[in-house]
């Protein structure tokens, strides 16, 4: 295998990994804190992407990265707002409910997202052109590295570092971690657990929306976007350890590499290595790479 091929393999798998991590980050954050596996997370990611798309349409063609980033942030804010509504209307009411019903309820939310998306934006495929600076590719020797890929990898890294700093170095972040570890104790210590939950949900949804905006140029936009990412996001957080951001980060890299290598070895069955890896890990070490045993 030539160096160029290896480079391509690495870049592709890292791009996939970072894209998946961007989606998975909010999902694992909410699970780690509220212990709710939000099936609809992929749906809100999709809404974020569509929102960024609409914004791009409204603003007209632009070649500014700044505008692209702004669109992503706007999507994040919008989806965070939706998240607050969802928290109020749905998530809070799921407090004492059995796990199975929580899964079903968040799945129902996903359906609502998909239905709403189809209603508002229709079934047609759309695409958003990335700003000029991110378009095209760098040619290094015989390797071709798309600029958008590098952008996505950079975004993933940035979000990871930002989240790690937030959770481990800031007071609010450590509060979130404390509550995730022991909400009862936290409540006893006078912390307003409900408010932190709501903030965490908002953050989780914001991350979904942000991911949607950042990745909007990465693939075609269609109502099946949610389904496409949900399973991969699940797989990544399971492998990484549910509730762990660093687990999601390294898990996505691991799975991305395994899938890319698997595809090179056994082409024609896209996604198969991913599933095998996910199943094996679920069986051998269900708490994931960095998770704690329940």
């Amino acid at each position, binding site marked *: 295998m030539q160096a160029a091929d290896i480079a391509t393999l690495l870049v592709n798998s890292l791009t996939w990994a970072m894209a998946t991590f961007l989606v998975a980050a909010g999902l694992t954050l909410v699970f780690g804190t509220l212990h709710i*596996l939000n099936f609809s997370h992929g749906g809100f990611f999709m809404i974020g992407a569509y929102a960024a798309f609409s914004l791009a349409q409204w603003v007209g063609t632009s070649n500014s990265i700044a505008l692209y980033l702004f669109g992503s942030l706007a999507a994040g804010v919008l989806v965070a707002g939706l998240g607050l509504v969802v928290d109020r209307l749905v998530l809070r009411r799921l407090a004492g409910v059995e796990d*199975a*019903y929580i*899964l079903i309820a968040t799945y129902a*939310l996903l359906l*609502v997202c998909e*239905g709403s998306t*189809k209603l508002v934006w229709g079934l047609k495929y759309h695409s958003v052109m990335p700003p000029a600076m991110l378009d095209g590719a760098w040619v290094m020797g015989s390797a071709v590295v798309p600029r958008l890929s590098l952008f996505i990898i950079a975004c993933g890294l940035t979000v990871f570092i930002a989240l790690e700093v937030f959770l481990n170095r800031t007071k609010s972040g450590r509060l979130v971690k404390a509550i995730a570890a022991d909400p009862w104790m936290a409540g006893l210590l006078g912390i307003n657990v409900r408010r932190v939950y709501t903030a965490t949900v908002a953050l989780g949804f914001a991350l979904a929306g942000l991911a949607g905006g950042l990745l909007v140029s990465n693939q075609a936009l269609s109502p099946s976007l949610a*389904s496409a990412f949900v399973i991969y996001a699940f797989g990544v957080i399971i492998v990484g350890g549910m509730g762990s951001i660093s687990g999601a980060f390294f898990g996505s890299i691991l799975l991305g590499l395994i899938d890319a290598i698997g595809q090179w070895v056994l082409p024609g*069955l896209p996604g198969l290595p991913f599933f095998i890896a996910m199943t094996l890990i679920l069986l051998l070490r269900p708490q994931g790479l960095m998770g704690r045993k329940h």
Partner: protein
Amino acid sequence: MDNRSSFLGGPARRDWIVLAVVMALGLLVPSVLNRGLIFIAGLVWINAVFGLSFNLLFGLSGVLSFGQAMFFAAGAYAAAVLTQSLGWPFLPAWIMAAVAGGLLAALVGAVALRRSEGVYFAILTLAFAELMHLLITNTGMLGRNDGLSGLARPVLSLGAARLDLGQGDNFYYFIVVACGAMIALIRFVIGTAFGRALQAVKQDPERAEFLGIPVRLHRLVIFTLAGMMTAAAGALVAPWAQIVTPELAHWSNSTNPILYTLLGGSAYFWGPALGAVLLSAVFYVTRTLVGVSDLVTGLLLLAVVLALPGGVLGLLARWTGGTRGKGKA
């Protein structure tokens, strides 16, 4: 028996009567409805069995699977391949399709049931179903994304008699009889000691284990049985719709039985069947409005989980005096 005890094994007779009535009504359908609606009615029967076998897992045993579509598709594709490509007569093909579903379920169950936490099991079943979907769409022999079409309605030769199920509404009648038999089998299983043990496993697995009930084995057996029944139902789709596509293995098909069950009421034997009827009506009414069926289904499901966890039958039970002796725990 005290009505307050929600233990099955009591009012079995009532369920047999309901089954007889429902089948009689079902057989009357072709004289009242047009071709298009008869087709839907046939699908409703099949989906009712799909929902009822799901509830063997969820309502009876407390096992939540997000991947039942893989067995449905396995049955459908097995029937299609056996009859079309290998020329098998329909009845043996149907049985073989059910067996295939059972084997697949035994395999998946052996792997997925090793850890008892429900969330992991649910996600594993989702993943396996996606894998199945992936494999189907990438297999030339199964028609890739186009599936297998042109499937014929069979002609049954039972000894001396020949029944052409391709004529008129004959296959619909066959569906009613076949599904009725499957529903009867499901009801029978629920009323056995095994069925009661599964209810115990659902309520308190540790207590059940310490009564000598092997929890994992019981879950595996019911998962296998449910897989078999689901595949048997799916196999009927092949000659009925006369085409099988990968959509049958898509995860939205896995969530259909969940919808039927929750809407109708998971604590009641007939819940999933009622849910299948209601949701088919909803889907039919909203079919032309893009996105509306997803939206309505999602909202319905949310409403049921948040406000009406007992489903429609649960609501009815509350209105008619709150007796819970109606079905399963």
